[in-house]
């Protein structure tokens, strides 16, 4: 009885609804976590504003779907094909576009790289349409099984996604924290010049990080492809989530932390749909984001500003004007 009253106070029909929303949130959040962790690694280490992460995401799913649908490969080899092609694609982007551009632009070339990666997004999406048409494709072959736990439902695929996310990001965190390679990656992230000076090949680490990040993001793409469908524009929305999660978590955090931040965002988005309609649940995510950023900088900003606008400061200005007159 009392639980129903609580539920009523919270404005939800029942705790079942809440539980289902939370489970859904964890599942979508796990995917956000993969996206964010992959991008955070790339952003943090290479500093490239890799907007085309959406393209590698789509290419992974698309190639896997084409491999099963057109070439008739079984699921696992098809997934490997998708991940491999996307990784090669990402390495090519870094080698052919980002690196030469950043070198020429100087200062890391944040904006030129950003706009060029936008060009890559446009090219890739439409090239895929030209080659394979605009149809919706599917990636099939994963055993379908649905669990019902006290009226909360999820599928075997969902469960696998969450487990794979935690294992993959946990393993990646260990790799970064405990191995020589991880130490080199962190060294490049901290100070590339210093890393270069002690004999780490920064170029090699950049390529490596692009490969790892693309694979992590690609795993999210494979799960999305198996759960939903594969279309040429499927990479556009995940770009948002990848950037939001990576920035909220901070691009220097261990991948598992980024993953948990992704899950938290997925939860916030999903649970909020209990109270607000689906189409504005994104409002919750971005409202939260805005609030976090504002909380970070507004108090100090106001202090600086009140200092600048204070009467005492004005007086100094006037006095110095007088002494100079």
């Amino acid at each position: 009885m009392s639980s129903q009253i609580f539920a009523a106070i919270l404005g939800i029909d029942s705790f079942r609804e809440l539980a289902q929303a939370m489970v859904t949130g964890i599942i979508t959040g796990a995917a956000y976590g993969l996206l964010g962790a992959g991008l955070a690694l790339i952003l943090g280490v290479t500093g490239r504003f890799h907007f085309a992460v959406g393209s590698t995401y789509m290419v992974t799913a698309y190639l896997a779907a084409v491999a099963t649908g057109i070439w008739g490969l079984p699921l696992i080899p098809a997934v490997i094909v998708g991940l491999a092609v996307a990784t090669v694609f990402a390495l090519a982007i870094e080698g052919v576009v980002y690196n030469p551009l950043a070198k020429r632009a100087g200062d890391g070339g944040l904006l030129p790289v950003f706009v060029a990666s936008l060009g890559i997004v446009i090219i890739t999406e439409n090239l895929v349409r030209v080659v394979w048409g605009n149809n919706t494709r599917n990636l099939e072959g994963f055993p379908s099984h649905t669990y019902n736990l006290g009226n909360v439902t999820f599928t075997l695929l969902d469960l696998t996604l969450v487990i794979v996310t935690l294992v993959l990001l946990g393993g990646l965190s260990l790799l970064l924290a405990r191995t020589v390679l991880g130490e080199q990656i962190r060294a490049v992230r901290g100070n590339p010049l210093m890393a270069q000076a002690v004999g780490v090949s920064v170029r090699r680490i950049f390529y490596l990080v692009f490969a790892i990040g693309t694979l992590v993001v690609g795993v999210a793409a494979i799960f999305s492809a198996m759960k939903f469908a594969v279309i040429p524009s499927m990479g556009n929305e995940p770009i948002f989530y990848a950037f939001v999660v990576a920035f909220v978590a901070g691009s220097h955090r261990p991948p598992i932390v980024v993953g948990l931040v992704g899950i938290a965002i997925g939860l916030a988005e999903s649970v909020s749909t209990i109270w607000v309609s689906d189409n504005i649940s994104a409002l919750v995510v971005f409202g939260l984001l805005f609030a976090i950023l504002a909380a970070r900088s507004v108090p100090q900003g106001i202090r600086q500003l009140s200092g600048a606008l204070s009467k005492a400061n004005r007086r100094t200005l006037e006095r110095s004007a007088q002494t100079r007159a």
Partner: protein
Amino acid sequence: MYWIDVCNQILIFATLAMSLNLLLGYAGQVSVAHAAFAAIGGYASGYLALKSGVSVPLAFAIGILGAGLLGIVVSLPALLLSGEYMILLTLSVQTIVLIVITSIGALGGLYGLTGLPTVSFFGKELLRPEDWLVPLIIVNVVILGLLTWIGESPFGRILRGIRDDQLATQSLGKDVWVKKIIVFGLTSAIAGLGGALLAYYNGVTAPGLFEFNQSILIVTMVVVGGRGNLVGSILGAAVVIGAGPFFEKVINLSPETSALWRLIAFGVLLIVVLMLRPQGLLPEGLSIQALIRKLRSRSAVEEPVVAPAPVPASTPGNGTAPAGDGGEPILKVSDVRKSFGGIHAVNGLSFELPRGRVTGLIGPNGAGKTTVFNLLTGAITLDEGTVELRGEDITGWPIDRVARHGMVRSFQDVRIFPSLTVLDNVRMAVQQQRGESLRDLFLMPWSVVRDQRRTIRRAREKLGFVGLADKENQLAGSLPFGEQKLLALARILAADAEIFLLDEPASGIDAEWVDQMVEIIRRLADSGMTVCIVEHNLHVVERVADNVYFMDGGQIVAEGTMEDLVKAENLVEAYFGQP
């Protein structure tokens, strides 16, 4: 007819791109929410005219105002955010605005408001694209003029200073916070105008006109056209908007895929343009005037080069050297403490700077010397203690206020503005410039123009003083390190200060520059200015300093002439380690 429509769209987006350029190109504040500000203008003006019966010009004005106000609101959390976080913040603003707009039923939801009233321009109704062309050209010319006036003024120079190095801008006595808010508000307001134009030109305010992709396209126009170059933004708008129609004429494969090939061609175009011209089609500083100057200087090189004689002892500083021989304390530091975490970086520091003298501050690495400069100028706040300048307590003042009050500093890592010319670097430092506020720019434009001559004269005088007069049109970032140090010195000399805190002025530079630097510092003191110098090169300290403080562990442990200190064995050991 078709091409006129394309032209009109280019012109509308050019207003959006030019305004974003002031924010992104000049002030270095990256925003991906420009279309959202345009949406405020478009929707507010559309709704008011359609549903509340407000006249169209008034509806435009309110839309512009509303967008400007939202810009000011957004600028507050943006004040302290760096590049990447700015993108995230504006991304969230863009998304929030669009979601809110589409979820308000009165604004037409996902379909927007249709059937907007016709706009008339000087009594002529704008019905067909041809009718719009001339008004849009006029709007563009006005906005180009307005933004050029602002961007190339002292106000715009401060914006570029913020972009290149905010701390250095502040340390020259410039307020940066209010300027950031103003530039946000102003550029958002112009975006509001662009949005209103976009809505009324199309006859509808649909969400699709203002979505995130549009913001990204506007950023693309600015980057492709050239950041910091307003004409470039018009060109950028032409490339981005015109590419579609252009490829439509060029690429005519099979009808199903030609639209796709056009988009692919656009993507390739973006990448190729940026690979060939990373600074954009028209880079910053590229104008007809600059080209003429370049040609002139090229022909000047062919003349026999006369060695530039250093300008003889003209008075540095503000020329109002105080009466008397000096020597009385002008700056008094009492028992200052600062700890970072548990580390006492400065621990009960007290010393004085006598007027008209050079005081050295030496000590081993980590003694806290640079921290002292940071504390004195307000770059970091102190925990305890007081700083008095000419008997006035300046403890806790913000950095720009300290500078305006007459104490400026140089930085160990120079912190010049690399993408400004040598002359503009020094001009930035001149105090009390007309045209550093919008009020000056619009209420007394003539005196702004007149005052520019004063700042140029003053900057040239200081450049002559350090021997860089012949380099004034070079970009500061292209100078060798030694000359950058001299430039940094010329810059603070132009700042009308009485006290100069010099952080390692002679380190990392060639011997020839060292001699010049020593001479300049001596001349500075001889003309009544007060100098405090932190320097590793003890020979330099010995040559310039009248009095030297030895600092260790965040405290002054000894004081005297350099000779005295060198004799004290324990100090030499502390400095050089065990023999």
